[in-house]
């Protein structure tokens, strides 16, 4: 039974006039850890519920290997779900909760299988407790054991760590990954937390407004975002509007407020004249004065307007002569001193780290602010401003929301530069 790929084909779900999921097609390879990443309301949970059979698709097909399960009842699908709020049966103890699926299928060796599943999540000693007597983290493990014990073809996880505190969430991320590797079941994980998706998933599909913005490995998505939405939602990006000046086989030369910037041709997604030039903050180097190392993209005449030292790195905000702002993260390697505010700098970065997006895109797409992207636009932020809402990235933001973006960006930069 196991070892079948999950395939979604043009999956669509409408509620009245609202389209929650808009023609999603994707393949999830058997045994992989797949994440559907997006903000709330992007349709990721609806997609998951359609795979589980809890929601009927308006259009499109769901296949497991060669079997079409689009119209199969939930209890007929070799698919199990870890629900967002766990949905443990309060009248049954931990053992019976985990045994529920096995008993329904009249499986042999219920006792041994349940014990094994409870050992997997390290809860063997609590088998006779009721769910109400467990902590949130323990309940989460029971929910996982209850699903895994059935050895489904696909395990669906709906924001499984959403109700846990930050520390526990980190711990469970590693544990989920360990369990997935151990049991080899396909995991489809829905989350709005980009760090969570990047830590665990082999493949991430970034969703926005019912569609998939980009699909790929965490490194692909981070290093070569295809859209402004992905560039901003996954970590932070500096995005600057530019016009194509010259195209050659290897690179595209563009003009950013009078400076020449080279974008590798295979990293430039725009075929037209207008381009959004992007670079991740940790790839950006700041050089005092006007000089810049040869072979690097450079924008001169910058002024440091903000420098916040966070220990592992210093986060700078640099204002360019055009009035646009750029963010730069400098790793605290001990080799460079912290630049003071007011210091004149040249902003430079390796050509290979430059990416080009379609110039017609909204450079603020995918930026999570407490009031949403629309508010950021209303506030009149210049194009090419600091993207993302890390605690340090935007220190004057009223709320440093779940607080992992900046760290994740830094970590991503370390490992993948």
């Amino acid at each position: 039974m196991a070892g079948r790929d999950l395939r979604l084909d043009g999956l669509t779900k409408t509620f009245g006039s609202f389209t929650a999921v808009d023609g999603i097609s994707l393949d999830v390879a058997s045994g992989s850890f797949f994440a559907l990443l997006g903000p709330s309301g992007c349709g990721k949970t609806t997609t998951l519920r359609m795979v589980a059979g809890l929601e009927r698709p308006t259009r499109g097909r769901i296949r497991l290997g060669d079997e079409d399960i689009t119209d199969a009842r939930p209890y007929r699908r070799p698919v199990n779900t870890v629900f967002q709020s766990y949905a443990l049966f309060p009248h049954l103890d931990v053992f019976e909760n985990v045994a529920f699926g096995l008993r329904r299928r009249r499986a042999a060796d219920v006792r041994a299988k349940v014990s094994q599943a409870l050992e997997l999540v390290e809860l063997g000693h609590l088998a006779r407790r009721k769910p109400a007597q467990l902590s949130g983290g323990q309940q989460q493990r029971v929910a996982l054991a209850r699903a895994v014990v059935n050895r489904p073809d696909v395990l669906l996880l709906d924001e499984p760590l959403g109700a846990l505190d930050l520390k526990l969430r980190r711990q469970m991320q590693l544990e989920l990954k360990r369990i997935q590797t151990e049991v080899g079941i396909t995991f489809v994980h829905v989350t709005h937390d980009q760090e969570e998706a990047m830590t665990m998933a082999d493949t991430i599909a970034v969703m926005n407004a019912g569609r998939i913005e980009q699909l790929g490995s965490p490194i692909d998505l981070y290093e070569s975002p295809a859209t402004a939405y992905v560039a901003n939602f996954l970590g932070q990006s500096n995005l600057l509007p530019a016009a194509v000046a010259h195209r050659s086989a290897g690179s595209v030369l563009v003009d950013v407020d009078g400076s020449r910037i080279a974008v590798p041709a295979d990293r430039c997604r725009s075929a037209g004249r207008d381009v959004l030039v992007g670079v991740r903050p940790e790839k950006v180097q700041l050089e005092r004065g006007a000089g810049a190392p040869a072979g690097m993209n450079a924008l001169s005449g910058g002024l440091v307007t903000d420098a916040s030292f966070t220990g592992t790195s210093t986060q700078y905000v640099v204002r360019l002569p055009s009035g646009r702002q750029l963010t730069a993260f400098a790793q605290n390697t001990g080799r460079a001193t912290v630049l003071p505010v007011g210091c004149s700098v040249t902003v430079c970065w390796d050509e290979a780290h430059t990416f080009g997006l379609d110039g017609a895109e909204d450079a603020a797409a995918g930026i999570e602010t407490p009031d949403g992207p629309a508010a950021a636009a209303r506030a009149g932020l210049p194009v090419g401003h600091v993207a993302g809402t890390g605690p340090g990235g935007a220190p004057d933001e009223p709320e440093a929301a779940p607080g992992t973006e900046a760290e994740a960006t830094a970590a991503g930069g370390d490992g993948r530069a």
Partner: protein
Amino acid sequence: MSVTAVAAGTRAAAGPEGAPEEVRRGRRSTPYLLLLPGMAWLVLFFAVPVFALASLSLQTRVPGAEIGVYTQTFRWANYSDALAEYAPQFLRSLLYAGLATLLCLLIGYPLAYAIALKAGRWRNLMLIAVIAPFFTSFILRTIAWRQVLADSGPVTSTLHTLHILPPGESLTASGTAVVAGLTYNFLPFMVLPLYASLERLDPRLVEAAGDLYATAPVGFRRVTFPLSMPGVVAGTLLTFIPAAGDYVNAALLGNPSTQMIGNVVDSRFFRVVDYPTAAALSFVLMAAILLLVTAYIRRAGTEELV
């Protein structure tokens, strides 16, 4: 008397001259003061009458005196005599009340389920419809059942046509009519607690059951029904206990051979003026219900379902 004492006590505690310590003492006694009216009510109208009734159940008639005059002789045989004479009515009461409770559960559960989980915006209207009959007199509604079950009525003629009821037999003045009346009158007491417990049910638990290979009927049996047990227990108790002691339905819809224990108590008290027997019967009924209810709650195991 006690009310005046309470008022005086409160004033003393809250008085302007009250030292801090006295105020604290006043606060500590507040719960007891709040309990007082209820306790007084319970003592006056429950404990004292129960004691009086218990004493009455052991009395015997004064020889030669006029009817209704009794004296305390601690005659425990009053109980065995009453039980021996009225055992059929006793068993019939428990049987009718049991049948009515079962019917209420069978009718009320789907109804409560529909109101709680499927009614959507009609929910409040349906709840009002459940309670609406209370706006009409209990007696009138019960008498109306005579019309419903009359020989010329739709129910009887339909049953005759379908040959379920043999020709010539009628439904009025029968055990069927009494059980029907009991079921009808106590149905809201079953529906409301069931509704309350089903309404609290987390729909995601039912989804989870489906996700874990339970078909809809199995999901109901393993998840929905066990989680609605507090409502089932409350509903059956609220139906069974008053139904077992009811006498109006048997009096209005039954015949002499369908008498329930309530009718016997009624006639012993008010017609024959045989107070000790009536009192003894009341106590036996109370004891029987207490035993049954205790056994039932033990079995249903509701203490685990808070």
